[in-house]
């Protein structure tokens, strides 16, 4: 047993142990630490008495406060729903066109709509709804399936080419790959579409030939004037909005390979009130956009 020494600096005795020059003082545990330990241990003990805690064979101690996280979350959800019911019930049931004119409801839409839109729609349509390649600009471009509030709400509800039984269905055929049009004809149509959307106009004979091709192959869905048809969900080809870019090469690709974009159905994922709020929100964006 090594000798206990008194440390000059602290005045404490060492324990008498030494390891390669390291010694230990035998300083008593400070009172403050005991107090701290007892306080915290008491807190821990009291907390386990109040809350569900110690396990047994056939269950666990429920705690004196009767706290239950499942009940707590149900209650919080019910309270939040009750708070929102003031406007949510109206949104879910009343006529959308009438709601559009209701300043109180539209204030709710403008306040709650942005986060709802960005969390659910922005991944494809972009945070300001102006679209991305493959996903249409719904803030400005004419809407392919119609832009009255009930139609927009229905599009959100059932989706496009989605797995909903009532989903909207649209497909642009692969005219090149499936050999309905020759390469030369596709080029003619691409030039024609560039000219009617962005200009400049084609020479008259070229325009007539391409127009013939258009009437025979495309007008069934896009309309004789190429302005699109909401019945078939086919876009307007005469404006400068393009879902898949309006340069000649991309247009050729679209005609050659066809297109079939998808929008998911939101019924079941969003509530009726949320779906109808999004319809009003998007239409409100469109009126705000000059």
């Amino acid at each position: 047993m090594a000798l206990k020494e008194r440390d000059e600096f602290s005045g404490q005795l060492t324990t008498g142990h030494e390891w390669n020059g390291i010694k230990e003082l035998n300083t008593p545990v400070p009172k403050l630490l005991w107090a701290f330990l007892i306080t915290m241990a008491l807190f821990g003990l009291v907390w386990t008495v109040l809350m569900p805690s110690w396990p047994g064979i056939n269950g666990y101690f429920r705690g004196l406060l009767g706290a239950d996280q499942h009940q707590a979350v149900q209650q919080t959800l019910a309270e939040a729903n009750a708070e929102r019911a003031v406007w949510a019930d109206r949104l879910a049931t009343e006529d959308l066109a009438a709601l559009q004119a209701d300043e109180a409801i539209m204030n709710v839409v403008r306040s709650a709509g942005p986060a709802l839109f960005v969390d659910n729609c922005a991944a494809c349509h972009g945070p300001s709804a102006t679209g991305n390649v493959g996903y249409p600009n719904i803030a400005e471009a004419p809407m392919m399936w119609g832009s009255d509030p009930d139609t927009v709400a229905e599009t959100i509800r059932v989706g496009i080419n989605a797995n909903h039984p009532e989903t909207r269905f649209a497909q642009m055929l692969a005219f090149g790959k499936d050999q309905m049009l020759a390469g030369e004809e596709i080029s003619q149509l691409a030039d024609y579409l560039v000219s009617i959307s962005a200009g400049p106009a084609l020479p008259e004979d070229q325009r007539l030939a391409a127009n013939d091709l258009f009437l025979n192959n495309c007008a069934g869905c896009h309309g004789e004037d190429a302005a699109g048809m909401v019945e078939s969900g086919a876009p307007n080809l005469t404006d400068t909005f393009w879902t898949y870019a309006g340069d000649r090469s991309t247009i050729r690709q679209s005609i050659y390979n066809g297109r079939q974009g998808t929008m998911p159905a939101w019924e079941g994922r969003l509530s009726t009130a949320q779906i109808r709020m999004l319809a009003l929100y998007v239409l409100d964006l469109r009126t705000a956009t000059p």
Partner: protein
Amino acid sequence: MLADFTRGERTGALVILGTMVVLGLAMAIAGRHDLLGIHGWIVFGISLALTFGAIRQLDLPEPSPERLSEYYDAPTRTGLILTLIWGVVGMGAGFWVAALLAWPEMTFDVSWLSWGRLRPIHTSGVIFGFGGNALIATSLHVLQRTTRARLPDALSPWFVLIGYNLFCIIAASGYLMGLTQSKEYAEPEWYADIWLVVVWVVYFFIYMRTLARRKEPHIYVANWYYMAFILVVAILHIVNNLAVPVSFGSAKSYSLFAGVQDAMTQWWYGHNAVAFFLTAGFLGMMYYYLPKRAGRPIFSYRMSIISFWGITFMYMWAGSHHLHYTALPHWVQTLGMAFSVVLLVPSWASAGNALLTLNGAWHKVRDDAVLRFMALAAIFYGITTFEGSFMAIRAVNSLSHYTDWTVGHVHAGALGWVAMITFGSLYSLVPSMFKRERIYSQKLVEVHFWLALSGTVIYVFAMWNSGVIQGLMWRTYDETGTLSYSFIDSLVAMHPYYIARAFGGLLFLLGALTALFNVIMTIRMPAIGMAPEARGDLPAEPVMQAGE
């Protein structure tokens, strides 16, 4: 290396290496249609290279009996260098993933550069590569000095060090290929896990055998912690990695646990990895190198006892605080929270014991950057454990959980505590281990200290801000009762903090590079001729080695 081995040990080394060559080849053949095959070839290649190296040294003369009157430090020396190399790799990967969060296009559409594959390289690289090698290297040093006994043999420490680093290589290369069992900090697949168990058991037995041969009547506190670290990590690792491989030719395996039991097992493991790998092991380091450098006795032996048993007993229960407000039953959450809160007491007792030990040596803390590293580590340990207990409170956790606050907390611990105590210990250990008079440049240690401190502070403050903002944005409702902010709004708000975090990480990485440079330059300095006797750095008496 083989020059230190007796003839029996050389035969043993060849048998082990031969077995590994065969195992590697078997893995390569069985897994030829799987990524397991690539790992087979890696094991095969490394083992074969080591075998050739061993055969070339096979006929070296046997080591002289005088060696037994000295400590065996060669594995520690190699471990220290590996620590620094893994530190640079792991922290480099950390900087890269931090930059990826601020500028996601930096994956360049290359699958193995994607965030999900690089992130575990960062975490495993710093925890297991940097931290693990530091623990092995220092524990072998501390073990011998505090027992005054030489390691029982030369083969087993080398087996542990090389085997452990082989595990790290298998882990990191697996992540790059997309191999993971998707358990945080336990990503490596079944074959790597089994290998680590073998290595770890040998490590444990080195400890037990040396302690059994100790010449000191008492076992020093540092060794309590190192032993707790080795023993508990073995238990955690084995239980959490219980899994059934798809086949012996497949790298993929399925965990024994499912659902909430799986989550609870994982976080029992995860939190105790923090407790016993990143806390207990490094407390062992602190208990030796801090009083040694300060030249002061430990403040209170009694406080050491309270802290040790408090920490080992209470941490075991705390894991469920990672699963507040989940499918985990409420009663388990309550227990996790209660134990986590009480855990603050032994944690602060440890930090306090370290800082009070410095009483009478604060002038040294002011003048010596090496000791300052260790003092700062103790302060960060105190801060981080307070924060941890605080965040374990359910109501606080409802704000902090899933946010960058957690990331900030982890890095206050990892950078401020684990890395600082490691660098401090390493700087104080390197000169004597390599028999150099001093560290190459004390100025560079000073530079490293300030890089590390400013890097940590920038990092942690950025993440605290980002995390609290994030947590608040996720729970802010407007007067209509709906969310005020979209998720993307919170990302936009976090972006500047992500840039700041990457910058803080870069400073810390530069510090680690400074350390690597300083240590290399120290090794390149001329050795001092002084014999260990002159420094009093010798075991108690020559002891015979087993088998002689």
